[in-house]
């Protein structure tokens, strides 16, 4: 009998029909011809005649082709098996992609449960990445909002002898730098200053800056209204002009468009408003509300002792940071030789403004970014595992498609389309998570990170999320895609054929993924554990005083009004007395700087009967001017000697000082410092009265932050020294301290109704703020590690469930043959725990290598803290054991009869 199919196929060639489609047509037509043939033969025709008669039907080969062409045009939808690529590659690519997408969407809908789990896992990973990246993007990547920001630098004095690599420069040094340097286009100085704004409304204390007149042109910032300072306005006598922040202008002056030219009263003196800065302007931080010109007096211009300026400069085009550093070092060396008494050992340090602003956060942010990257990897591993399990289920489908002529590459593409679609869906949900997360995150971001408010999901972040989503889809999609291609087509097509993924390479790949998940989550958990450990240790650091029931507020006396020492003393005495008489108040005191505040004065001292130290190497101590009740109010214990009394006043023969135990230990290591005498380094001792007598030693307090060791410190009483006026009022209460805020403030206003009171906080709040940064890093790390652990747990659970389900038959036989449930449990658990132990082993090695990068974030623990490593490993083993136990237990509940029927 002739091969009818071949005859038909010949005539269809050139139509480029999809193979499956063509096969059907060939079959149908060939059958028709065969029927005709058989009828002819049974009717008595010879075979040759019958064949001729049948082929007569196709005599016009062109007709069939033409007719089929008309039917097939417009082209039929490409069948599922996938059409081989045609010559018009481009349109085919697009239509293939569309088809793949439609198919992928259909698959996702069909497996809704799987899809939802995968999307949640991916969304967590991608969302966390997006949130952290948007912080990194803002703080580390986005250019600062100034003109050519990459050329802006901060110039410091470098004082290695006193351990101050970034010391604020003295005025005379700044002036010399300005005159002698060849590398800066411009250089400007800034100081912090608070201003008391009085006049209409409540008196208010404003944070502001005194600045060189050239600061704003240097930054390349124009005012929103009016003008910035003119070149001659930073000269003495012409500095009574002020620039307002946009916020202050809106809030206090109702956005008055005619504000320029009006007068405001600052520190009791009249200033003319010359302009308003734009809303987004901040330099260097966003607290500033006003700027006034900085005019140096002749005395200031020659002062190399008082270090209090911040210096910003713009590099000349083409000048590198290294060139600027070299130049400044040269100038500093020259100044050292010229002024050995003040400048010996004093260098200069140039850093970029960006590094200066972002530097502190950089290690923490990069580590967090690394951490979320790992979380995403775990999510990928999880989804890949899910896909692998599903690929096993889909093997028949794939085999059919391959049999129908689909090319493997085409199928891999189909798989990848599915996984990328999944990842992009995850990315969309992840964006929502990131958006919500950022709102939460922002409330935890320490305020002293200058760009914190600017953190948003912008185009860069969206691009990042898209990139991460697609990359994620490719990563977790590739393994199952390749896996799915590696199977024996014939076996799979056979009814009841075993999944390739059950044994051999599929199982191996899934086991590998579990090991990876365990290892990665162990690294994250150890990282989080180290940060928790650090944070707890930090929390437990004794600040040297009791923080509870303390209310603090700033009461800064305006200089012009309170120039007179007696008037100032009287004011403080009045305030302390009046506040102490309030119900609920146990005691009150004033000080120049509260502990745990990142600021305060330090002075060099000389010690009586000791040789003059070499220039620049005099002892330096932190100085605080307090009221006698301060130690009692703060609960700072007196270790020896006595506290200040009312008798320690200006009428006493000598000034007196109470020193900290660190100062005592450092400068009088084997002696009793009480009774010894010291003097300020910058005041020449002309008479015996210039000496200050040490009368007592108190316990150390952490002046700057909990993590920083206490520096030598001395306390003076405000009744003797007018060097600095106290600024902080601190009140010990019997009741909840915050509840007394208004009462205490009113008590101050009863003494002076124009006296601003600001920054009302409890000491506990100050303490919390001082460790906000560490808390922030720790909190995020803990969240990420928790997510990682949950994902890993789910991953282990999934693989174990699958493995138990696959082995139901085997377990059934074992049980039927009399195996004890304990043995079965051990069998099922053993497989899971083996993977976990391998994962933990690898994770420990990785953690050992990786946690070193965290060293700067740690406090009181080493990066390889054995206790943390052990505890966290046990925790993860516990979680993993639970995740394996649940499916393993299910194995023991297998009914042998049912299990044997299973298949």
């Amino acid at each position, binding site marked *: 009998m002739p091969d009818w199919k071949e005859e038909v196929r010949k005539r269809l060639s050139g139509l480029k029909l999809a193979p499956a489609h063509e096969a059907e047509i060939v079959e149908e037509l060939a059958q*028709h011809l065969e029927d*005709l043939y058989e009828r002819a033969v049974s009717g008595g025709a010879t075979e040759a005649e019958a064949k001729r008669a049948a082929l007569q039907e196709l005599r016009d080969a062109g007709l069939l082709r033409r007719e089929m062409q008309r*039917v097939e045009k417009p082209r039929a939808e490409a069948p599922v098996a996938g059409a081989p690529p045609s010559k018009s590659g481009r349109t085919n690519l697009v239509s293939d992609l569309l088809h793949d997408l439609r198919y992928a969407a259909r698959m996702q809908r069909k497996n809704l449960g799987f899809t939802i789990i995968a999307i949640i896992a991916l969304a967590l990973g991608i969302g966390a990445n997006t949130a952290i990246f948007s912080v990194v993007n803002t703080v580390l990547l986005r250019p600062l909002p100034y003109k050519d920001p990459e050329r802006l630098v901060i110039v410091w004095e470098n004082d290695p002898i006193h351990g101050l690599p970034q010391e604020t420069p003295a005025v005379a040094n700044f002036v010399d730098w300005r005159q002698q340097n060849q590398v800066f286009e411009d250089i400007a100085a800034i100081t912090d200053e608070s201003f008391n704004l009085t006049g209409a409304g409540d008196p208010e204390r404003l944070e502001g800056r005194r600045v060189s007149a050239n600061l704003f042109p240097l930054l390349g910032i124009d005012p929103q209204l009016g003008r910035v300072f003119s070149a001659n306005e930073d000269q003495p006598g012409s500095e009574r002009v002020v620039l307002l922040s946009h916020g202050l202008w809106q809030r206090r002056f109702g956005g008055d468009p005619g504000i320029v030219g009006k007068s405001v009263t600052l520190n009791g003196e009249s200033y003319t408003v010359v302009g308003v800065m734009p809303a987004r302007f901040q330099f260097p931080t966003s607290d500033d509300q006003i700027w006034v010109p900085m005019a140096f007096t002749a005395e200031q211009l020659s002062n190399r002792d008082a270090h209090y300026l911040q210096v910003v400069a713009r590099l000349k085009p083409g000048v590198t940071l290294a060139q600027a550093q070299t130049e400044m070092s040269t100038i500093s060396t020259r100044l050292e030789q010229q002024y050995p008494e003040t400048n010996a050992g004093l260098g200069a340090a140039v850093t970029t403004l960006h590094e200066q602003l972002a530097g502190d956060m950089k290690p923490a942010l990069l580590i967090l970014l690394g951490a979320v990257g790992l979380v995403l990897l775990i999510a990928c591993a999880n989804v890949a595992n899910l896909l692998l399990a599903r690929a096993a289920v889909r093997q028949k489908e794939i085999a059919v498609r391959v049999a129908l002529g689909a090319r493997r590459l085409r199928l891999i593409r189909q798989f990848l389309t599915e996984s990328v679609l999944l990842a992009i869906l995850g990315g969309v949900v992840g964006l929502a998570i990131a958006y919500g997360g950022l709102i939460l995150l922002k409330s935890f971001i320490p305020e002293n990170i200058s760009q914190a408010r600017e953190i948003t999901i912008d185009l860069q972040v969206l691009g990042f999320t898209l990139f991460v989503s697609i990359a994620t889809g490719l990563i977790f999609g590739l393994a199952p895609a390749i896996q799915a291609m590696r199977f024996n087509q014939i076996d799979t097509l056979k009814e009841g054929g075993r999944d390739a993924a059950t044994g051999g390479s599929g199982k191996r790949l899934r086991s590998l993924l579990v090991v990876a998940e365990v290892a990665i989550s162990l690294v994250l958990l150890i990282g989080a554990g180290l940060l928790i450990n650090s944070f707890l240790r930090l929390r437990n650091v004794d600040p040297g005083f009791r923080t509870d029931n303390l209310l603090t507020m700033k009461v800064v006396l305006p200089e012009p009004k309170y120039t007179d020492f007696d008037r100032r003393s009287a004011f403080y005495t009045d305030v302390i007395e009046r506040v102490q008489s309030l119900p609920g108040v146990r005691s009150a005191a004033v000080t120049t700087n509260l502990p745990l505040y990142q600021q305060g004065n330090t002075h060099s001292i000389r010690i009586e009967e000791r040789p003059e130290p070499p220039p620049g190497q005099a002892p330096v101590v932190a100085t605080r001017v307090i009221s006698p009740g301060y130690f009692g109010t703060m609960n700072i214990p007196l270790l020896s000697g006595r506290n200040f009394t009312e008798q320690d006043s200006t009428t006493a023969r000598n000034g007196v000082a109470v020193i900290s135990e660190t100062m005592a230990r450092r400068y009088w290591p084997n002696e009793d410092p009480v009774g010894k005498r010291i003097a300020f380094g910058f005041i020449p001792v002309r008479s015996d009265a210039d000496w200050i007598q040490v009368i007592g030693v108190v316990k150390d307090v952490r002046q700057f932050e909990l993590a920083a060791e206490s520096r030598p410190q001395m306390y003076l009483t405000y009744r003797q020294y007018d060097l600095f006026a106290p600024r902080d009022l601190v009140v010990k209460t019997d009741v909840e301290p915050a509840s007394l805020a208004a009462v205490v403030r009113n008590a101050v206003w009863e003494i002076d109704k124009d006296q601003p009171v600001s920054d009302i906080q409890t000491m506990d709040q100050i303490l919390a703020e001082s460790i906000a940064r560490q808390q922030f890093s720790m909190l995020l790390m803990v969240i990420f590690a928790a997510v990682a652990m949950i994902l890993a747990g789910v991953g282990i659970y999934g693989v174990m469930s699958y493995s138990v389900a696959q082995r139901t038959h085997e377990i059934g036989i074992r049980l039927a043959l009399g195996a004890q449930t304990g043995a079965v449990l051990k069998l099922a658990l053993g497989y899971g725990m083996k993977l976990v132990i391998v994962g933990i082993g690898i994770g420990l090695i990785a953690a050992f290598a990786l946690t070193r990068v965290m060293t700067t974030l740690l406090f009181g623990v080493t990066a390889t803290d054995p206790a943390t490593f052990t505890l966290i490993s046990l925790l993860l083993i516990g979680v993993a054991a639970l995740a394996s136990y649940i499916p393993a237990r299910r194995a023991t509940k297998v009914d042998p009869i049912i299990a044997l029927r299973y298949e």
Partner: protein
Amino acid sequence: MPYKLSQMLDRELKKGSAELLILSLVEDQPRHGYDIGNLIEQRSKGRLRFNVASLYPLLYRLEKRGWIQGRWVEKAGQRRRRYYRLTAEGKKVLAAQRHSWREFVEAINRITGIEHA
């Protein structure tokens, strides 16, 4: 009929009427292509014949339009065959085509006076 209708139909009318023929044949029961071809030949007493090259493309076209639907059916002891059945839409089309065919024939008859006037 005094002339050979098949020749004319082959050229002109066949185009318009072939659809109607096929739809009519699968109205009562699903039929495969060979069956359809045979029936046309038998019932027209050999005057109408579709060869394979034109019958199947026509079937496919009707199927594509959604008027008929083909399905592979296996019966005991036979090779599988593709049976075509009339779809709901096909039923409507068939009714409409019958109606217009009747009108067409009536009009022709009236003009040519074939009907006994």
